[in-house]
């Protein structure tokens, strides 16, 4: 019987071209969708793709392809797959690779390359893609031997999806795609230099249990690591069991229900007063899958000054990188939380602490002054939240609209929030929505973008139309690069250098050009009306909201300041001011 299997396996080792190997490998990896753009160096791959039955989405720019793959990966948890041609095709994905690297998104990216015999001769559409992408990929390869190709692809999927996820790039010279070799996808992966630690060290877990039992003011800072590990349930169970309040990073949103009484909101530069003060005042800080980004910590000198810091992270290099850490736990978030839940230990006595936090929540909620004559961007997000019962997938770019979405769309479920966090990439939201919708076909997907970022990748409207994806593209149009304008207002004496764009094109007409419905609103009543219309349509719709142009994102921790030095914190009752 065993011999039979070996025989069968041998028979499977059929000879085929590199291009066909790639297709077969993608099938073996159960890849549902590829995002890509053809070109000279990948013609043999596209030729095999033609009759393969593998679903391929032709974006209108390679940057669109890779951001779509990121959106797909963020929602599905599966690796996003991208194909781009050599030279400009490959350099066009550099932003997306960097974005995926810093936000830990699993991608497997194939780039074409000029034929092996002309590499290094500055051939047509040649670029040193392995060199260029080395610092912005988790790992990258150039195929130099056709026999290596199946092994490389298998390793790439393994590396991209395990440990701390990230993008892996495979650069394939054109001759490697036409050359034939034996296809063996059964071989085992052997990577002695790559052995991620998944399970926590028991001693460190005990240390944390001990620290919790003695803590008076503990707090959990939960990042996207919780989402990558699918550990939302465990996080909630642990927080409830130990009565510890939870704060999210920007990318962690949705990991813990926003309407839960233990939730304090988002931390950082535009986080809630309560979350930031809790980080400042806490005596035990349990970081789960967040990397203490500078936008979260503010000035490190004043960050959690009285706290014992425990840090659970699958990437050991993140522990102790920015914040000295007393209890380091290298582990998958889910494994560590499961272990913590089952430990015997006295929960922290947080009654007084929670009372204090609730008082802050009541006194200093997120705040804006509404005006029905115009559309307040915060109000717009709240309206979207109500229309979608907080269950939509939201994708954004970077900037004011992103912060308002993070503040006012209350994510109660995990894997609903797709944003460019670490890199802060304009033009991310629209293509990411395509990938997100393909990952979850039944979900309501809303791409909230600014009028600036939208124009960086708006060509992808073509794809939305072509695939008839019922994505609602919402432009928070303040006729400016809002966050730049805000900083110029506050820190550069209102010298609005190249941040005001009063002559934006007619986005409704643009929607028409792409053969989709477009609506515009300038007052709150109109906004409500067009939202109602848009959500009644099962098709792509573009909505252009002319919001209050000079609205700023508050509260705010100015650069160089500590989290306790927030400005723009206003009590809900104005008479208290």
């Amino acid at each position, binding site marked *: 019987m065993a011999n039979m299997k070996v025989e069968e396996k041998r028979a499977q080792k059929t000879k085929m071209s590199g291009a066909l190997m790639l297709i077969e490998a993608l099938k073996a990896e159960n890849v549902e969708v590829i995002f890509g753009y053809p070109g000279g160096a990948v013609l043999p791959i596209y030729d095999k793709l033609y009759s393969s039955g593998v679903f391929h989405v032709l974006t209108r720019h390679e940057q669109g392809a890779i951001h779509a793959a990121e959106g797909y990966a963020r929602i599905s948890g599966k690796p996003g797959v991208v194909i781009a041609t050599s030279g400009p095709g490959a350099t066009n994905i550099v932003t997306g690779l960097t974005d995926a690297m810093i936000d830990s998104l699993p991608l497997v990216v194939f780039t074409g390359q000029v034929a092996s015999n002309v590499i290094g001769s500055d051939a047509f559409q040649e670029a040193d893609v392995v060199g260029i992408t080395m*610092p912005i990929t988790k*790992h990258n390869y150039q195929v130099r031997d056709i026999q290596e190709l199946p092994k490389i692809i298998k390793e790439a999927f393994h590396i991209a999806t395990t440990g701390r996820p990230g993008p892996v790039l495979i650069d394939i010279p054109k001759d490697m795609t036409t050359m034939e070799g034996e296809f063996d996808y059964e071989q085992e992966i052997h990577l002695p*230099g790559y052995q991620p630690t998944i399970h926590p060290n028991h001693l460190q877990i005990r240390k944390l249990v001990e620290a919790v039992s003695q803590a008076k003011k503990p707090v959990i800072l939960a990042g996207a690591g919780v989402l990558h590990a699918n550990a939302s349930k465990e996080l909630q169970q642990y927080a409830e069991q130990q009565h510890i309040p939870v704060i999210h990073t920007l990318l962690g949103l949705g990991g813990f229900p926003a309407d839960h009484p233990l939730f304090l909101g988002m931390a950082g530069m535009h986080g809630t007063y309560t979350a930031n003060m809790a980080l400042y005042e806490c005596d035990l800080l349990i970081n789960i899958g967040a990397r203490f980004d500078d936008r979260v910590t503010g000035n490190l000198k004043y960050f959690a000054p009285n706290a014992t810091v425990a840090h659970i992270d699958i*990437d050991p290099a993140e522990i102790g990188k920015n914040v000295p850490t007393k209890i380091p736990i290298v582990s998958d978030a889910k494994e560590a939380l499961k272990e913590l839940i089952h430990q015997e230990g006295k929960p922290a006595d947080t009654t007084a602490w929670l009372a204090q936090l609730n008082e802050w929540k009541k006194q200093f909620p997120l705040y804006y002054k509404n005006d029905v004559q115009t559309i307040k961007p915060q109000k717009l997000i709240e309206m979207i939240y109500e229309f979608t019962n907080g269950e939509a997938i939201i994708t954004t770019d970077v900037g004011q609209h992103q912060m308002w979405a993070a503040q006012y769309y209350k994510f109660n479920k995990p894997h609903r929030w797709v944003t460019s966090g670490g890199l802060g990439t304009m033009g991310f939201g629209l293509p990411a929505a395509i990938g997100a919708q393909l990952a979850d076909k039944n979900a309501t997907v809303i791409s909230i973008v600014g009028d600036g970022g939208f124009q960086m990748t708006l060509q992808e409207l073509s794809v939305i139309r072509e695939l008839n994806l019922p994505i609602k593209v919402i432009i928070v149009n303040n006729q400016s690069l809002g966050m730049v304008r805000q900083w110029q207002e506050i820190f550069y004496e209102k010298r609005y250098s190249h941040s005001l764009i009063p002559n934006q094109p007619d986005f409704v007409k643009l929607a028409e050009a792409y053969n989709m419905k477009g609506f515009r609103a300038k007052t709150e009543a109109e906004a409500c009306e067009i939202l109602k219309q848009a959500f009644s349509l099962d098709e792509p719709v573009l909505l252009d909201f002319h919001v209050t142009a000079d609205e700023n994102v508050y509260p705010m921790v100015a650069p160089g300041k500590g989290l306790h030095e927030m400005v723009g914190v206003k009590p809900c009752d104005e008479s208290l001011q």
Partner: protein
Amino acid sequence: MRRIITMTVNNRPGVLNRITGLFTKRHYNIESITVGHTETEGVSRMTFVVNVEDERTAEQITKQLNKQIDVLKVNDITDQAIVARELALIKVSVTPALRQEIYTLIEPFRASIVDVSRDSLVVQVTGEPEKVEALIDLLKPYGIKEVARTGTTAFTRGSQKTAASYKTAFII
């Protein structure tokens, strides 16, 4: 502070680029690098001497290096009993009349003359970087035309117990 970091890596195209790229990206300054084969086929050893600000940076370097898929093992061996050696070639201007003087001078360093011409000779010296420095300083008055140094290569000693006595033992 000066740290000596050794590591074993897969001998693949671009690995050195990967490592030095990481140093650039993370803003670490490299003082020297040596690379060569090991006893295992397909595995190379690298020795880095780096200057870092503090312990935390030193720790970050080894952690970041460890994340590289092609890096098999990283060791910061600065505080261990180690054998650290460097080779230097020093071309000195010397007239035939002074040759004998140079011979006498380099003898305690166990250095040797590996090339002689009418107006110069080449001294080869091996040892701790400090020893190499000392010899270069001694030869300076004669006129040094060129110096080529390999940078430090190092690994830990077989026995770590008597670390203190080893540390004083390797001058010359």
